[in-house]
């Protein structure tokens, strides 16, 4: 990529928009005076302040999900220059350098139903978390004293899995995540591992493994490894899938002989 010392005059962005789930998609282009240090969420904020396209058409602010603006709430996942990433940490300067013509493109995630513009419905992930009982079934919230002691090594392996922000980027980039397979996706498998590793959570270990056996479960994984590359929180997804794959298989064998 050629180094250029010339400050760009303007930031150009084209947004794939859609007014409602049923209407057709269309593209609108915007242009703003250049400022350094912008990210996509601040760029969308500029559009909200002056929603006029490059053709001079008065339009509406772009609808998109965002909350924390620091890559921890998982809201703002979208396709930026064709790649699934978080809008808040997508820096405009880097994105402009990525493109041939300096025009940044924004589009909603492609594998989830569009609500409006860049906002999509990702509730399927939360339904999947119920399927694998992604929780520790405590007796009650009354005081029962401390939990068991736990080696730091267990915490060090669990903690990265607890960083999952449910952004669904892993599902977006996964070739196996589609309507045909009904694959739960990497995030759900990693959460199952997280809870199987907890001393109290492990009481549901067999049930979680059975939930991941069969259609839509771990067998759908095709080892593309897109998930671990795309995960904004660098979760060890393929390691989790590999570990859980083995555990699911062992459980199936046990069940075959025991039941």
């Amino acid at each position, binding site marked *: 990529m050629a180094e250029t010392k010339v400050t760009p005059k303007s930031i150009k962005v084209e947004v794939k928009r859609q007014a409602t789930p049923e209407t057709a998609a269309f593209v609108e282009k915007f242009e703003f005076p250049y400022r350094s240090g912008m990210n996509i969420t601040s760029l969308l904020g500029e559009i909200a302040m002056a929603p006029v396209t490059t053709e001079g058409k008065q339009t509406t602010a772009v*609808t998109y999900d965002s909350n924390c603006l620091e890559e*921890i709430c998982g809201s703002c996942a979208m396709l930026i220059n064709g790649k699934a990433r978080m809008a808040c940490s997508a820096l405009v300067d880097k994105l402009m350098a990525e493109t041939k013509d300096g025009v940044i493109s924004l589009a909603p995630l492609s594998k989830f139903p569009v609500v409006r513009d860049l906002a999509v419905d990702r509730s399927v992930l939360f339904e999947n978390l119920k399927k694998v009982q992604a929780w520790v079934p405590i007796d009650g919230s009354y005081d029962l004293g401390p939990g068991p*002691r736990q080696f*730091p090594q267990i915490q060090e392996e*669990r903690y990265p899995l607890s960083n999952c922000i449910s952004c669904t980027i892993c599902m977006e980039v996964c070739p196996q995540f589609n309507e045909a397979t009904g694959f739960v996706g990497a995030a759900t498998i990693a959460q199952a591992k997280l809870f199987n590793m907890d001393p109290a959570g492990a009481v549901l270990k067999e049930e979680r493994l059975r939930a991941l056996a069969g259609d839509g479960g771990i067998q759908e994984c095709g080892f593309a490894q897109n998930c671990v590359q795309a995960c904004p929180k660098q979760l060890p997804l393929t390691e989790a899938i590999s570990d859980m794959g083995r555990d699911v298989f062992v459980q199936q064998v046990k069940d075959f002989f025991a039941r």
Partner: protein
Amino acid sequence: MAAVPKIIVVGGGLAGLSSVIKIAEAGGKVDLFSIVPVKRSHSVCAQGGINAAKNLKGEGDDVFKHFDDTIYGGDFLANQTPVKNMTAQGPAIIDLLDRMGVPFNRTPEGLLDFRRFGGTLYHRTAFAGATTGQQLLYALDEQVRRFESEGKVQKYEGWEFLSAVLDEAGVCRGICAMDLRTMEVKTFHADAIIICTGGNGAIFGKSTNSVVCTGSAASALYQQGAYYSNGEFIQVHPTAIPGEDKLRLMSESARGEGGRVWVPRKKGDPRPAKTIPEADRFYFLEEWYPKYGNLVPRDIATRAIHRIVYQEDLGIDGQPMVYLDVSHIDRETLEKKIEGILEIYEKFVGEDPHEVPMKIFPGVHYTMGGLWVDFNQMTNIPGVFAAGESDYSIHGANRLGANSLLSCIYGGFVAGPQAMLYAKNLPAQKGDGGAAKEEVRQREFNNILLQNEGTENPFKLWRELGDTMTRHATIIRYNAGLREADEKIVDLLARYRNINLSDKSAWANTSFAFARQLYNMLQLARVIVQGAEKRDESRGAHYKPDFTERNDEKFLKTTMGSYDPIADAPVITYEEVDTQWITPRPRRYDASA
């Protein structure tokens, strides 16, 4: 009297989820309303840790010391009884979170690890890396998902609270809310409601808060007659990363693990930070406050940084920035204890804090004030409870780091059962309890807003609000400036009537939702600046160069903000503070080590 109490909880952060858990366990029916999917609530942003005096470091810590540190840190403004109860429950709350599967950092013996945080000399902050809010929120989210799968909780995610439904006697009988996709306005019946809607950083424009932290729900209740207390107490966190759209928090835990704040001794020193030798570095917090050093409470640290930049003129390169340095700490410690926040710095600034000092500046962070509540978390409106950052009850004039996560869970754990108790004794409502009338009122506001043919853009009005609030109502306050801010807000309210929404559609209209929040932000902002103007003293985070001393005789009182609908303005009065356990004493952190 309802056979099975029906409670509505508004807000799905730590306080809201804590309330929900208690209600579901007690067999109540609970509806949980949230603007965003609950695991995306602002609680997720909390970084450093959660306090409890478990005394696992052999220091002789106990709940009374935690209580005293909190009251002292809050400059004696908080009512003491709720704080005493909170610190007493701290150890049990942390144990519960541990049992729920929160991956707290552990010691080699397998016990919970604790770090030191601001405003205390004891290691009493349990943590999960430097993303503790995330792990705590997820643990409660998971428990509520379990209840949801069992049919005990109904979630309304993507809905925004507009107002409480109040019957003829002024008793709450439910809420009026808006579906943020269909823009439909609907009332929901409840025997009691619990407001857990967080703080109001968005009023200041840029802050460490998330987009939903507008204070809109609290403001709506204030306009319906709830007291809003101590609104003028706004915490400006000393170490935030300046940014275009947000001030990103750089957790106090960086200092807890040994991070040091400094500036070059020489004004405008051109050398790269790493090459400046120790002798040429001014570690000003350590020099000015030998005992607490870099871990003085936040208001003290913020004012020190402000003074370094604006009075001593020693900001880096003449900019409003100082160094927060962790580069001298070994990699392994950084990775185990605070990797999450260092990643934030690297991602958004592009420099590696393992190698070079971070550049930071104070930023608006937390709302100590909020809805007034009694010791059972009920506001002055019968049936309306509040908990978490949206209530005023725990942190007085300044919040200690790592007390917020504790106060949210404590508040929710009190509000849930109290709301159930209240509901069980509530006489049945007459007719529809005022629901139809409230729905009409809200729809009318919406119609006017949607059809208004004006020229003002709500996002631009919001920018102007943020500018004036940041300039006049944050670290340093002058009465003339606060009056100017109030006049500006009144002007913005007038211009609001000339608003024109670029988006008039009835589907997922974010401009419309924002415009509604803006109106409430403007009303609440006046409570903040007027409370600040009338408080002629300095206490905790509230600092006036014209009144530098604390004045207990006149102002050891809770500011009570109430809305006068005729005058369309706040009315400020005062209430005595419960000081029965600890006698107020001067608050100084500059003792020698």
